[in-house]
């Protein structure tokens, strides 16, 4: 285990239910994340992060905790390297009339290549989620690579 840990906090003018839906509902997720998350979201079930047509699996794992619309904890690994598994938790709560969404990505294995792949993706995905929920318009995260390359792209080099 290594100590690398990413903590992302976003305040969104929305409701906890909508934020939960945005993470777990495939049609909702494709609007701002491009890819979508598939699972029945029950504890112990598998979940997958797949391309819009479902043909490609980018991330896979198990649901460790599921308490809608407050907390979701997942294991996270690339399908071609399942041993390099890490953990992602989503915590959703109301703070001062806004939804506070905390995403924590941690528990990386020693020598994991995942931090490089995800550290630029999460801020962009969360930014796009916020934009979609607040304005109805997501960010084109495939186009806006630049310094905040989309999830799982070549930004690993950074």
């Amino acid at each position, binding site marked *: 285990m290594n100590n690398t840990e990413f*903590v992302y*906090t*976003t305040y969104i003018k929305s409701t906890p239910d909508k934020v939960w839906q945005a993470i777990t509902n495939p049609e909702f997720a494709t609007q701002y994340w491009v890819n979508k998350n598939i699972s029945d979201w029950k504890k112990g079930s598998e979940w997958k992060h797949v391309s819009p047509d479902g043909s490609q699996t980018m991330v896979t794992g198990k649901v460790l905790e599921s308490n809608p619309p407050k907390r979701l904890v997942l294991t996270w690994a690339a399908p071609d390297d399942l041993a390099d598994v890490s953990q992602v938790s989503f915590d959703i709560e109301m703070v001062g009339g806004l939804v506070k969404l905390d995403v924590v990505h941690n528990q990386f294995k020693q020598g994991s290549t995942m931090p490089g792949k995800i550290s630029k993706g999460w*801020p962009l995905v969360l930014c796009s989620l916020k*934009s979609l929920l607040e304005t109805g318009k997501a960010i084109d995260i495939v*186009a806006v*690579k630049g*310094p905040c390359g989309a999830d799982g792209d070549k930004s690993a080099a950074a």
Partner: protein
Amino acid sequence: MDTAKEDHDDKVFKALADSSRRALLDSLREKQGLSLSDLCEGHDMSRQAVTKHLVLLEAANLVVTRKKGREKLHYLNPVPINEIYTRWIGRFEAGRLMALDNLKKALEGDNNE
């Protein structure tokens, strides 16, 4: 104009408009999850000054904290900076700007580190 959003953006820009605070963010970019003592060590600032800067960075949501046992650990939260980025950089400019940025880094690289 969305006043709450502009208020938040004001906080972000004010928090960034100080070299000591930017230096604290640099430290957190190098290594996430630092305690107040860790942050004081790397900087020529009093503990009170670091604390004061961290309050402003937290208010701008640029730094988030988590409790680990008795310690409060600090993390760089790049989400607000990403919002600034996506607000003004259009979809077709991103690639070109990245290329320019890489060129600048390559040209200046020798003098930098």
